[in-house]
């Protein structure tokens, strides 16, 4: 018999592992990915593949040749970043742009802070925002969802959010904007143009439920974001429906679903405690609605998450676990 092992207790470990968690997140994203293929076809697949290869490759190269610590390489974690980044980009994004996004997400937002677990900002969102400010034209030229997989030459156009924003800026009311574009509200909600991750709230919620069942995430952060947005939109829309969009519109358009369910809940860049998470969520909701209603950008989910990411260390200091007997 070989020499026995001696180690401090405990001598058992749960089946949980970082890879397993990341795998669960990927599984949870599958329904939304399928829907986006259905809507956008091959173009979306190309964006996804380039983004994933870019993220994993970049992480591997940095870990292997810059940090010289191959042990910290986490393929699954980079893959999650890659998928999330792809879901944040328009299907029309050229491959080189996606690659730049992946390099910024992994190289700048993640690895320069020390890699997995050390980053302050959500890598995928950082990548997206970098592209948004660098290539505003390509990044806002959203494909309108194709009716079937075969119909390849889809129409491109602006997202509902930007249509309304532009209209409001020129002094029109919401109804006038819609009339001018020949649309109505229900149509907007049915055919939501946007990044691939933004188009099917149902698929995203389905995936999120899987994560809840697997106990990978807790519902506090998304819940508080959604409720905050609903509350603000409800109040403003009730006061002045001509200039402020309503609850359903604000929840279902843009990146609210993807952002609150999958980006804001990223372990590394969100507070760990329940009440910390609630404050973080309320902050994101507030900032999103401020940008949407009063800012110059039509959409603010990415900015809201990045801004609240900065506050996470502070929130973690302020909110602690309830201690036993204290």
């Amino acid at each position, binding site marked *: 018999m070989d020499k026995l092992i001696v180690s401090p*207790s*405990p001598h058992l470990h749960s089946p949980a592992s970082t890879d397993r968690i990341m795998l669960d997140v990927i599984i949870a994203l599958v329904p939304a990915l399928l829907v986006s293929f259905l809507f956008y076809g091959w173009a979306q697949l190309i964006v996804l593949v380039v983004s994933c290869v870019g993220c994993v490759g970049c992480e591997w190269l940095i870990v292997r040749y810059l940090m010289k610590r191959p*042990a910290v390489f*986490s393929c699954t974690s980079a893959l999650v970043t890659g998928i999330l980044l792809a879901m944040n980009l328009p299907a029309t994004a050229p491959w080189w742009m996606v690659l730049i996004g992946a390099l910024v997400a992994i190289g700048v937002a993640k690895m320069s802070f020390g890699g997995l677990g050390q980053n302050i900002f959500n890598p995928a969102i950082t990548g997206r925002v970098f592209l948004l400010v660098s290539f505003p034209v390509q990044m806002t030229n959203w494909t309108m969802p194709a009716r079937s997989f075969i119909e390849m030459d889809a129409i491109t156009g602006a997202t509902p959010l930007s249509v309304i924003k532009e209209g409001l800026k020129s002094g029109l009311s919401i109804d006038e904007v819609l009339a001018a574009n020949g649309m109505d509200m229900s149509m907007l909600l049915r055919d939501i143009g946007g990044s691939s991750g933004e188009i099917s709230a149902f698929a995203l919620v389905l995936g999120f439920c899987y994560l809840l069942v697997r106990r990978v995430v807790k519902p506090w952060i998304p819940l508080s974001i959604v409720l905050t947005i609903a509350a603000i939109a409800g109040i403003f829309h009730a006061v002045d429906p001509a200039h402020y969009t309503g609850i359903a519109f604000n929840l279902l358009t843009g990146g609210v679903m993807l952002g609150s369910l999958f980006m804001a809940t990223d*372990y590394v860049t969100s507070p*760990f405690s329940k009440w910390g998470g609630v404050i973080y969520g309320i902050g994101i909701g507030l900032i999103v609605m401020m940008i949407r209603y009063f800012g110059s950008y039509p959409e603010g989910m990415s900015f809201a998450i990045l801004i609240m990411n900065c506050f996470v260390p502070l929130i973690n200091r302020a909110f602690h676990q309830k*201690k*036993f007997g204290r």
Partner: protein
Amino acid sequence: MSKITFSIGGIHPHDSKLAREARIEVLPLPPKVYVSMFQHLGAQAKPIVAVGDKVKAGQIIAEPGGFISAYVHSPVSGTVKAIAPRKDLAGFNVMHIEIDVEGDEWAEGIDLSPELVTAIPEDRDFILDRVKMNGVVGLGGATFPTHVKLNPPPGKTAECLILNGTECEPYLTSDFRILLERTDEIVVGAAIMQKVLGGCKCVIGIEENKPEAIAAARESIKRLGYPNISVAVLKKRYPQGGEKQLIDAVMRRQVKSGGLPIDVGAVVQNVGTSLAVYEAVQKNKPLVTNVMTFTGSTVPAERQHNYLFRIGMPLSFIAEQAGGIPEGTVKLVSGGPMMGKAIANLDAATVKGTSCILCLGEETRRHKETPCISCGRCADACPMGLEPFLLKKLYAVGDTDALEQNAVQDCIECGCCLYSCPAYVPLLDTIRMAKAQVMGIIRARNAKK
């Protein structure tokens, strides 16, 4: 009665009670026993026999070395061969009395008959004296001298005696077996302790995964007629058997940080201790035997055992009786897999608190540490509501003030944080160091006052 449990944290490790069907077997006597002088919490016991002395089983061979300490008795009859330092299971030198076994003759005044004695002595001091003179210590893990615990400081009264039959650690089955096979004795032991504590109520806490034990205990209480003893069914959850957690579960009261159970009117005793108290008071039999489990993931089903062993038997002797260490074992643990100590020296002798020899296979190997992803699972699992990932960071930078503020001293070392960490960060290893450091600072400060 509805199922109850503690309020913060906790985990659900796999049950693995593989030896639950194995009846308690009495082990034969080894040629030699080594009786440790450090079988209890507190001061080391002082030997009162000399080399060459003839001793009988049950005879006192060492006396307490302080207020918190205990008598040690010879577990066998024979000749004292040596009084010398010997390596314990962790490989540290501890004073042992080595006795050559000759026959099996017991000291006078010890009742070895199996009859149940239900008549409880009237005199409280007599009971406490018997418990003390027979060297009874807590058998739940901490081996705190029982006579000290049964004698609350003036001004504090016990409202509830909690008998700990939770056995929340995976694999362990010794408490379950005694609850099944020695039920009446345990119940009478509880009644004795109730009497000493001034007639408080008594709750026997048993986890839901032991329905036979729950039924047996209820039946016994009814048959023997103790209206003041009840059985509480607890949800299966680790670390339910932790003293503070059990009080929280049963009484819905939380012991304050740095406080004692008696502060909230609770006294917690293990069911094994109750059996030892019964034997000490009713039979005048010292604590020289205990029940342990030989089990583990590598042990085949037919070789799972529950043994009644004499204190001082070498672990290697017991392993031999059980058919040797099974193939594929990479680690031996004394005690449960969550809080037990890894055995570095199999020649070490059993002590009063030995509860298990656990043979674990490859699954016990530690995985390579990966970066923390701040998932907060350690904080969710911590039954004391601490934040292990934060404590580890604070220890790394040496901030003892912040460590104390974040209550590292409250850590009960249950291992839930390390168990649940998906990144395999060895949290408890460093938190234990941090706790020791902060406890030292607190003690030094209190000494100054």
